[in-house]
């Protein structure tokens, strides 16, 4: 692949801190490149040399299995070197400040730092502290989890789109219900921004106590406190995780009451549009947000979300870092698969088709 294949820049922003950094053009580009990496993943040897010589570090200061593994696997499939820092293993335990830890990582010559932190905004601070790093937000507090939203978009596009179509065309006017603890959900904030950018119509469904105090400026089509009234019209139902402590009486009286009113029970699932898709960012608490048998239905794309998370993260790392790598090492063959070429051409075509759809 040559320098010009990705256009003048990999992504509109040097970091991926929030979905808003991407815009519709950036989202289209990530999905197109992810498509080319999906092809790579089906090969006997699923590795490409795209980020050879680059170093990606993960700094996860909050418990996470799937997101960290996903990012590290993505980086390794791109042939990057991977360093892993976590709360237990780092000098943060010895009283070192986060800022100094980040400075240390930067001094090691790391190119990209993938940050997960329990405090909203920490990736923004890291980006401000370490100007030499490309920072990827892997989930911060209640704020954003952009790669999860991108994985969901990619998953829905894969389920609804037809080969050869503009991958974003399927989102125009698509009714999406985002259900559950929107207030405390970084996934919800990223999903709302991502779906709105590609032209979907998002309805938030939650008890008032689990909605943000203000929805001023949120690009949503509607808000409902009644899941039953919303469900029939939804083509995509995106369930959010309810953390156990939220069901302890402070926000909703009990998990039992929450599940009865806002859980996707088998009975409710039976009333879904036959073509509807059910998504959940995981980890799933079976029996709370979604009934166990519903989670295993064919319309539930939870496994796809995990698989697609990997290729979307490959795409994000490649777009943030691969540009310079290509420039440094000269023309390299990335992937010769037709779909990859098609995706790149669309992404590089200039006119953001998704914007026209929206």
């Amino acid at each position: 692949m040559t320098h010009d294949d990705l256009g003048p820049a990999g992504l509109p922003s040097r970091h991926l801190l929030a979905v808003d950094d991407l815009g519709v053009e950036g989202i289209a580009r990530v999905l197109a490149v992810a498509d080319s990496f999906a092809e790579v993943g089906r090969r006997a040897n699923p590795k490409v040399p795209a980020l050879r010589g680059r170093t990606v570090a993960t700094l996860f200061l909050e418990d996470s299995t799937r997101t960290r593994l996903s990012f590290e696997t993505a980086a390794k499939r791109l042939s990057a070197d991977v360093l892993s820092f976590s709360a237990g293993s780092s000098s943060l335990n010895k009283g070192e400040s986060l800022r100094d830890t980040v400075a240390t990582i930067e001094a090691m010559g790391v190119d990209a730092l993938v940050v997960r932190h329990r405090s909203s905004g920490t990736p923004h601070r890291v980006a401000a502290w370490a100007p030499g790093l490309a920072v990827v937000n892997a989930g911060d507090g209640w704020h954003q989890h952009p790669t999860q939203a991108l994985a969901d978009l990619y998953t829905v596009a894969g389920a609804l789109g037809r080969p050869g179509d503009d991958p974003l065309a399927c989102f125009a006017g698509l009714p999406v219900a985002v259900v559950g603890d929107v207030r405390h959900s970084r996934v919800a904030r990223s999903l709302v921004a991502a779906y709105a950018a590609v032209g979907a119509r998002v309805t938030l469904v939650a008890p008032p106590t689990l909605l943000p105090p203000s929805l001023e400026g949120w690009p949503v089509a509607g808000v409902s406190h009644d899941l039953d009234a919303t469900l029939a019209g939804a083509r995509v139902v995106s369930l959010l995780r309810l953390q156990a402590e939220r069901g302890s009486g402070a926000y909703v009286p009990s998990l039992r009451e929450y599940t009865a009113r806002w859980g996707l029970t088998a009975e409710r699932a039976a009333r879904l549009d036959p073509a509807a898709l059910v998504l959940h960012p995981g980890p799933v608490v079976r029996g709370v947000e979604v009934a166990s048998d519903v989670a295993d239905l064919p319309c539930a794309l939870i496994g796809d979300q995990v698989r697609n998370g990997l290729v979307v993260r490959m795409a994000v790392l490649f777009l943030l870092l691969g540009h310079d790598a290509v420039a440094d090492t000269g023309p390299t063959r990335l992937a010769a698969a037709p779909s990859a070429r098609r995706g790149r051409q669309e992404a590089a075509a200039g006119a953001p088709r998704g914007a026209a759809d929206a």
Partner: protein
Amino acid sequence: MRDPVVVVRGGTVLDATGERQADVVVEGGRVVAVEEGAAVPRRATVLDAGGCVVAPGLVDLHSHLRQPGAEESETVESGARAAALGGYTAVVAMPNTDPPVDSASVVRDVRSLARGVPCHVAVAGAITVGRAGERLAPMAELAALGVRIFTDDGAGVQSASVMRRALEYARGLGVTLAQHCEEATLAAGGVMHEGAVSSRLGLAGVPALAEELMVVRDLALVRETGARLHLLHLSTAAALAALSDAKRAGLPVTAEVTPHHFTLTDAALVGFDPVFKVNPPLRPASDVAAVRAALADGTADAIATDHAPHPPEAKDRPLDEAPPGMLGLETALALALTELEVPLSRVLALLSWQPAAIAGLAPDHGGPVAPGAAANLCVLDPDHPWVVDPASSASRSRNTPYAGRRLRAKVRHTVLAGEPVVVDGEAQR
């Protein structure tokens, strides 16, 4: 050794009695003459005040000088120097130190630290022991030492019953209580104002309601007890409206607002920078407009800084882990003159003679510039442009939210008890 003589020459004197062109001659810590073309004694120090306003020194009702206990943030001396550079001749030192100012010995400690510093430090006492909101601090003992203001600032007194008894007791002593108005259960966990911005950023918010509820409760307690109450750093339209009604009803209540609440909004938090984290939090534009209106129409009695130094290692953290607070002493006057659309005389009333009266420091501070008055003066150039540079602050800390901001109006000289402590913008000690 004879008393030093200082002549402040060529300025416009502006105090609560009005404005006139005059030189001010100071000797032995007192003003001895205020007249145009005053004779300059040979041994006099002459401070040029051409194009400047000569006013009573400013008085801050709300400074955190951090000593004892947090000397890495500020000391009484460094805070007093920042105050002098900002035109202040007196500051009220908040009692949320470690240990807190809830006993006579800590009052004496802070006073001994304040000896010889370039600004008068009036020590405020705590309302309750350990600022824990439970048992009354020995207010009579502290009042006998000269403490005029008591507050648990940093937190409000949550118990209505404790606050009621504190007001009753204070009324008997003739001292003023000052309340940090924040209902703790509503504010719990909040790192910024609860609203559109916090909702978008995924940050726990402090609702405006937390301030309003305690203001409304305390105004009812004032009506009940007849005690004097000062409301600290009001920041919301609803609280200011309640205050306005209470004043109309004749209740003995005063209030201050801060420069950051009339110059910054909660939109400043979009980059998650803890330099903008403060308590009460930065509010939306509608509240900022209400604060400005309260300054213009007299609902607010004073501009107070809530000067709250924190060292870089405390602020260079994730937003929810960083402590609230921002520097204020060196920028308050310039911000008021740059940002507020009110006459200079009103700005000085809000920064000097009105807070001096609330703190019980008048007329030595804030009093008219006239023969016989204590020589505590601020000489300011209302048209001197400058840019805020955190590195040049006299504070031990650097947490100003105004780095790089262009301001007009700068303090040129400060005279404390007849002695120039700031000359041409430079601290003299």
